[in-house]
């Protein structure tokens, strides 16, 4: 990877990655993760295929970074629960809702998306929020295109129900 490539890719896609990570991690503290995504891209540059899209490749790295970060967060919380005397305050004081400037209507939809099961959330964020094509989504998730179509359809159905449930609870 040349310096020129990094500069190009970073300035072209950093907002896309930031946006994706806000949704995927449901956390407001994702700047370090954006950096981690590009560091992993630099070290894994040999695996990038020239004919594929950098955006799709970077999003699939971002997804793995987010999964790792969520696992790490869970482990840290568990550790803190086990050593009660060492409980730290959560660091991310800015919520995704604040960063995304969500109004009440948007919040309900955002919360409904976050409450979906993992497969559904994956496909809603990629196809819905990030507006990737079926082919791009299939590449990021390592699924076939048919599975993307079917899962997206099911996810929309589940999201609709979840949204209605949120409305009923209010």
């Amino acid at each position: 990877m040349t310096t020129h490539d990094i500069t190009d890719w970073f300035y072209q896609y950093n907002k896309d990655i930031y946006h994706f990570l806000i949704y995927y991690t449901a956390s407001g503290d994702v700047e370090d993760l954006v950096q981690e995504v590009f560091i992993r891209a630099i070290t894994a540059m040999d695996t990038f295929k020239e004919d594929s899209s950098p955006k799709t490749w970077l999003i699939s790295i971002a997804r793995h970074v987010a999964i790792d970060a969520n696992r790490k967060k869970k482990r840290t919380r568990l550790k803190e629960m086990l050593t009660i005397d060492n409980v730290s305050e959560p660091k991310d004081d800015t919520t995704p809702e604040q960063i995304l400037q969500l109004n009440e209507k948007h919040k309900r939809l955002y919360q409904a998306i976050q409450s979906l099961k993992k497969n559904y959330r994956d496909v809603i964020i990629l196809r819905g929020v990030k507006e990737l094509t079926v082919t791009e989504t299939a590449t990021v998730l390592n699924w076939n295109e048919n599975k993307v179509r079917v899962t997206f359809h099911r996810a929309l159905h589940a999201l609709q129900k979840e949204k209605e449930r949120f409305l009923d609870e209010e």
Partner: protein
Amino acid sequence: MKNDQYNELIEKIRSLPKPDYERHFNKERQDQIHQHLLHVTKKNKTPTNWFRRVAIGFGSLAAVLLFLIMIIPVDQNGTLDLGQTGSNRQFNDTKDIATRIQHELEIEATKGQVRELFGKPDAITPENSIEDVSHNSEVWNYHFMRTGNSFNDGNLYQALITGEMNAQLQVTWSSNLFKKKVSSYSIYYVKDEQILVDHVSMDGINHYYITPDGSRLSVDENDQQDEITYRKINIPVSLDQMIQLFRDKNLTIDPTEEDLPSIHGVEANGYHLKEGMLYVHQYTDDQLVSTVESEVKDTYVSSNSLAQAYQFNNMILVYKYTPTYSNIETVQDIRWKLNSIIDALIVASDVNNPHQ
């Protein structure tokens, strides 16, 4: 799959606001990260860094070897102990892995007995299983990893097929609150480049293959109807029209003449299709074509290949394929396209001949 009924919802999702970049991820912050990345790139290019990575690699390898020699107990047969915890549980002879687990683990074993055999489970939720399991039952997952690998990314199919994982054991517990016992267990492992599952319960053992999307392919000899799907469709279609439809769907279709099968003396035309073969038998006698169903199965289904067959007015069309880990997604895609071709023909035929 049509999402028309959800268009409004899709629009709502797409209209969710973007982050306030100016306040939370502004140019200054982006420049800081960029500077750091340039530094990392430079560091990555230096020869000392390359040398250091090789040295670290050798160091890690030595440490792993030392660990294996000192820590992992080896029994008299030279095989590894089953009772290890964490993600480094291993067998030396991976060929017999399923047999050996079945030999060790009995239905109705208690939690203590299972722990004694395999140690602490690597995961207790059913999240890592390929197929859905009952939410009422607790499932213990054990990952039998190949040396030096750990199960990080959560994709069981990939881990098995790439050889990082030798097998996964999923133990399902009975829902009895007072005395939990093994109600069934499944062993996922690779056989003939496919993921085979041995499911053991009080009723005996079932075997089936798993595809990347989680669907099952039967391997049981008594359950052969899954190995061939056969549809009789009464629509007028010529071979040329059919071939054209395949080409329209971007499925390569080059004729072949090698080893063409015959049914009731009618030899097939053979075509190379992506990840499989397409065979077409054209009959002049309509009576004869209606009696060949069982012959189609006998001719095309073998131990490691599956087939999808269609009978038209005077034509038998068979798509024969051998699913392996590397082609299974293409095979699924072709099967899906094949069905869509047939559906398109049926619709076209209904429109053209409403009274047929």
